[in-house]
């Protein structure tokens, strides 16, 4: 039987913890991703928010926007929660848990910009939220198809067996696209007009890492 760590994607085994058939594991690949997430959670915890500066068009004038402390506190909390959800998605060895963490990343992404009073930002966040909500259909659908065809959701068990249908893999990737909004840069560009630079950064970061992990999962199972 082929093990997870025999596959080229994963690299060397660092750690694995056997909970019945669900096995959380760290290979060099997922271990590196998890380390990156922890670094960015620490950045979100310790960094101070930016002061946005607007430059008046056609002149030398510029003015700094006011930073509302309670709103920034909420954004910081949501950024840390987003980091925690991303960390969960990196560590988990279960496909359904991965989809749940992906949805939680989508929720916290909305939360990070929700405190912003800017109407354009809120509008973009709302439209993005609707896309993320629709993305639960392919996400959960993909996981359900994997469960129906193979009888298992464990990445460890399914690794290298090649029994997962291509459609289920495609649905998983499609769902992560919806949650991570990386392809929907038009909506995202408006969202990141929200102030509070280190926290808004977490939106990009979580979507990037979700993609890296879902590619690993799709190549392994």
């Amino acid at each position, binding site marked *: 039987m082929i093990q997870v760590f025999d596959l080229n994607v994963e690299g060397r085994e660092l750690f694995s913890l056997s909970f019945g058939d669900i096995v959380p594991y760290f290979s060099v690949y997922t271990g590196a991703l998890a380390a990156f997430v922890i670094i960015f959670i620490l950045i979100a915890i310790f960094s101070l928010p930016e002061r946005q500066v607007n430059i008046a068009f056609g002149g030398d004038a510029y003015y700094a926007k006011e930073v509302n402390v309670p709103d920034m506190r909420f954004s910081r909390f949501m950024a840390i929660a987003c980091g925690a959800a991303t960390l969960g998605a990196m560590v988990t060895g279960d496909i359904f848990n991965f989809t749940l963490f992906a949805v939680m990343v989508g929720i916290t992404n*909305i939360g990070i910009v929700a405190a912003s009073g800017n109407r354009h930002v809120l509008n973009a966040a709302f439209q993005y939220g609707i896309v993320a909500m629709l993305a639960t259909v392919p996400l959960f659908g993909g996981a359900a198809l994997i469960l*129906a065809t193979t009888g298992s959701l464990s990445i460890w068990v399914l690794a290298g067996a090649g029994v997962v249908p291509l459609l289920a893999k495609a649905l998983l990737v499609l769902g992560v696209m919806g949650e991570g909004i990386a392809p929907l840069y038009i909506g995202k560009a408006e969202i990141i007009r929200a102030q509070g630079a280190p926290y808004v950064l977490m939106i990009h970061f979580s979507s990037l890492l979700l993609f890296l992990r879902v590619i690993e999962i799709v190549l392994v199972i």
Partner: protein
Amino acid sequence: MITPFHIGLFAASLCILVTFFSFLKERDDLHKLILTDLAAIMALFIIALVGTDLAEALILPGLVVGISKLMALAEIYLVKEGIQQKKNSTVLDIEVLDTAPAILAAILVIYGIVLSGFSGGAVAGLGIIFYLAFKKHDEKFELIETVSGYAWVTWIAAFFIFLIFPSQWFLAVMLAGGGILLKVMAKFSLIGTMRGDPGV
């Protein structure tokens, strides 16, 4: 071979198509918000089709993340459209807590009286905590103190009956059960008055 799973999958796909098509047509943001719930339910429908114990265990977390996302979106919609009625003063200041406490408290108190004894007092007390914590009106501390005092007397009287007239044990049990119900309920209900207001 066509199994019920395939028929269900076909039906679900049809529903999903209808949902996504309606998204193409719909322009109103509020209606879109309601349609997203339809899509989330369809996702759960596909999981439910698998029909194993594991699939059943996946429904609840799926439902929870779907609902939490819907609530977050609804909140964004309220702020975006500027139709928030009032500024939220506390974390728990949400609409349902203005209407639900009276009904829930009544159900819990009645169920607590039926249970009687310590667990009954805990259940009824929980109902009163819930009522006092979310209904903003002045507490009648004197009433709670008086009830608590009588409850204590009843309890002690029940113990005397146990010791002096052991043949009347049933009356003593009833008195002690009722007493401790009131005592625990009164103690519990005080928690509901701790709203962090000055002087309480």
